[in-house]
């Protein structure tokens, strides 16, 4: 076992992991943050997307030891004192989730795109959000929700 320190959603977690534990497993099993979902565990579906530093990462393809000392953001850190933030509110209003399994990954990927702060064309929006798989809601409402926040009309 290796002792590492993750700063997750501004809270320090000193945890013990095996080198083979993915960041996703460490977040779920060691930090108790089960909002990060695991779908395919080989980098295809994007359900486990979290932000490491400022970048979206497939948390099934990064070992927890690689994130030692890094700041990580997960879906649990998005809310605004218990209330939806703009992106979550937009997902709610635009019916951008149905079963909700892909939603944490979609939200974190969209968070990166919104925070990037540069103009996003519709083509680029489609290209970026196509990184993650949704198998029930459909992408149209997800794109609409993210677009509404990008356009500053999220809440």
């Amino acid at each position, binding site marked *: 076992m290796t002792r590492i320190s993750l700063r997750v959603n501004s809270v320090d977690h000193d945890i013990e992991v095996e*080198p083979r534990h993915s960041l996703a497993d460490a977040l779920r099993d060691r930090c108790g943050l089960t909002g990060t979902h695991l779908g395919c*565990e080989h980098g295809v579906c994007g359900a486990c997307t979290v932000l490491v530093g400022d970048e*979206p990462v497939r948390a*099934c*393809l990064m070992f927890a*030891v690689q994130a030692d000392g890094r700041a990580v953001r997960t879906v649990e850190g998005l809310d605004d004192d218990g209330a939806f933030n703009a992106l979550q509110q937009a997902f709610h209003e635009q019916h951008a989730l149905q079963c909700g399994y892909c939603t944490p990954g979609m939200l974190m990927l969209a968070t990166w795109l919104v925070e990037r702060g540069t103009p996003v064309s519709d083509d680029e929006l489609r*290209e970026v959000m*196509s*990184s993650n798989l949704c198998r029930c809601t459909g992408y149209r409402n997800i794109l609409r929700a993210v677009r509404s926040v990008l356009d500053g009309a999220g809440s």
Partner: protein
Amino acid sequence: MKPAPFEYVIAESWDAAAALLAEHGDDAVILAGGQSLVPVMNFRLAQPAVLVDVNPVADGAYLRIDADRLRVGALTRHVRFEAPQVGGPLGALFPRVARHIAHLPIRMRGTFGGSLAHADPASEWCTLARTFDAVMVARSVRGDRRIDASDYFQAALVNDLADDEVLREIELPALGPDWACGFAEFNRRAGDFAIVQSVAAFELHDGRIVDARIGIGGAAEVPWRADTAEAVLAGAIPSASLFEEAGAAAAESVGELMTDRQASAEMRRDLVRVMVSRALEDALAAGVER
């Protein structure tokens, strides 16, 4: 879907990585971006005893022009090639190739050198490296070894790197302003592996092609240069019919093509014909834009 246990060690320099490989031999595997290696480990198709993480290597990510060579640090992430990094026709080609690599979060982690080391038949960077006769620079405790692309790719996922060598730099020619470069790829879904892809480039003098390079990937176990198709172009004036002729020559330029559930060998051969022609059209369009 969880990897087998392994020992994790960090290398902060290429020499440190080489020393670790010398110590552990074929028990050790280099971890770069991990976007191909970790899935394979999660499937337990790879079970390395030791994982050497080279992400912390200082100055491992760069693109620099050095006289007539373009040097790419092995740890340069794919995403860096999406925005113009260096001038010249090859610099202009990079963004058009990079956006075909998987999806954005993958491109933000995956590395140029990692793709070359993984040597997937569908790798865009492997095809580009073969097209331009890149030189792979591998570090071991014995020093650097330079490997020509024509010797480097040996079979699907098999390259010429020895167990104790780590790929640290890839050298490409810094093409002059008379070159035009193009790319085309066929797959069934955006972001998926290429079924066939082609990198094509030619040098124009007074409206005539004086030199040409055509590389093809995804179709066979290793990328190859279609020299018979390059010969079709030599001395000719670019035109749609010339490009179709070169595509037809390229389709006949290799014997064994892959068959898998994506596409039969016969379909791949036809796609080679079309992708080469389209890559040449892309090159011509890029050349006209400049």
